[in-house]
């Protein structure tokens, strides 16, 4: 049985009497991409910073690569890579120099040329970081986290503020990480990002995990009712049903018999977005 790379139980963090994280439990297994999904202010960054060793927790047990991040030393830091939210690179260093600088911090780094290719910046080695596009800078950022050859990568909101093409580039880089056997812990408030990239997801709202699972079975989507909508004689009708096929059969059978037009007939299964919005709606 595989040992979890990250293991958290009963995690709590309070600032000035306000609890930002209220009892979180989760496990991340080796080689998976785990997404921590939730709206802004839900406690994602606080949690990930506790896992990265930047913040002390108020209560609970945390084990990352077998150690407590609060007490971990240099050897532990050799095995993790961190990409901060909204971090900006040194603009005057080139891509190759940024990577060489970070490579020098680790005892067994990967060759810089290899990392440049791995993050899709081939041909840009001599380009100054300040002249790269947003998507390219984030790839370089991921490269800097990767150059130390860590086992575990933390990505905090990796595509916030990106245009669609930059997001796609970033997603490719992240998906490639799993292909080379890295474990990735990613936080995001983008539904589609979690759906696209993650093997498993935990949804956090107001400091607590409200749902967990694979993107497909999250929130037991299959068992939630589908919605059928149409317009009859100008009137909007919306039906909820857990057996859409049977209901549709009834509906269309009746409409045909009566010669009635059902305009704009639509069947919608709850998307992960619907589930997400429902789970994270403020009470």
């Amino acid at each position, binding site marked *: 049985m595989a040992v979890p790379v990250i293991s958290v139980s009963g995690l709590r963090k309070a600032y000035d009497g306000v609890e930002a994280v209220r009892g979180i439990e989760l496990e991340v297994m080796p080689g998976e991409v785990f997404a921590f999904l939730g709206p802004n202010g839900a406690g994602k960054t606080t949690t990930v910073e506790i896992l990265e060793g930047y913040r002390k927790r108020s209560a609970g047990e945390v084990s990352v690569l077998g150690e407590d991040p609060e007490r971990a030393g240099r050897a532990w830091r050799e095995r993790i890579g961190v990409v901060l939210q*909204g971090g900006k*690179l*040194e603009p*005057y260093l080139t891509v190759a120099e940024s990577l060489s600088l970070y490579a020098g*911090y680790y005892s067994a780094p990967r060759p810089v040329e290899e990392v440049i290719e791995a993050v899709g910046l081939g041909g840009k080695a001599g380009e100054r970081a300040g002249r790269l596009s947003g998507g390219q800078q984030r790839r370089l950022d991921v490269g800097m986290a990767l150059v130390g050859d860590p086992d575990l990568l933390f990505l905090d909101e990796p595509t916030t503020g990106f245009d669609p093409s930059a997001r796609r580039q970033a997603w490719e880089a992240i998906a490639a990480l799993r292909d080379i056997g890295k474990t990735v812990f990613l936080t995001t408030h983008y539904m589609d990002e979690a759906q696209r990239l993650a093997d498993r997801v935990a949804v956090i709202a107001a400091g607590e995990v409200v749902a967990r699972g694979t993107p497909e079975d999250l929130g037991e989507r299959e068992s939630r009712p589908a919605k059928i909508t149409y317009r009859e004689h100008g009137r909007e009708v919306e039906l909820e049903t857990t057996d859409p096929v049977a209901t549709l059969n009834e509906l269309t059978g009746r409409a045909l018999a009566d010669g009635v037009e059902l305009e704009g007939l639509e069947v919608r299964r709850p998307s992960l977005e619907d589930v997400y919005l429902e789970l994270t709606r403020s009470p």
Partner: protein
Amino acid sequence: MSLVWHQLRYDQKVFWRNPAAVFFTVAFPVVLLLIFATVFGDQEIDVAGGIEITTYYVPAIITLATISATMQTLAMSLVIAREDGRLKRGRGTPMPPWVFIAGRIGNSVVVAVLMLALVAVLGKLLYGVAIPWERAPELLLVLAVGAASFSCLGIALTAAIPSQDAAAPIVNVILLPLYFLSGVFIPEDELPQGVIDFAGHFPIRHFFQAFFDAYVSGAGAAVSWGDLGVVGLWGLGGLLLAARFFRWTPRTG
């Protein structure tokens, strides 16, 4: 340590590629020397028994260049790195945090020594101001104490600077008036004694005095221990404040 050397190499690259940093730290002091020498011409001033005004300004400009390379550069570049998240990012790596600071101090010292050489040579070539070779050890001692102390003050100052935009205004509002009051811009024989006494509460005046005494023969003892001691104490205060108040994480966002 080789880690500091590794960090220092990259900090040097970054420094020399930044046009604003190079201008203000390297070109500006040279330009000031040229302006003062041209404006004041061949006047003599009543300091150290009567010297040419250019003899006064060479050590004055070196003093300014040292403070610029250390306190000003460190305060500004550390605030920028802090607010960009790069200091926090660095703490996520296996590097001990002090290495990031040591690399930047090393960078400042390299630039300060370079400026000493540059301004001293220009002073000699353009204005015939003698370079005090025989007092080189004392000169370097004063420079070392000044560079170390003003580095600590620069690091401590970052705690009082809330954002990247505030960095230049805060640093300049502190340094520029003090340069005037300490006799770095205006020759001290033109300043009222009250102004000089007031400036004596701050380290710039004392650093200038100590450096001047070491540079200009006949100005006084080669090493003005009293002045050097005051500079050192300020540096120590800066070190303690920095240890207590320096932050690695951005204040904004």
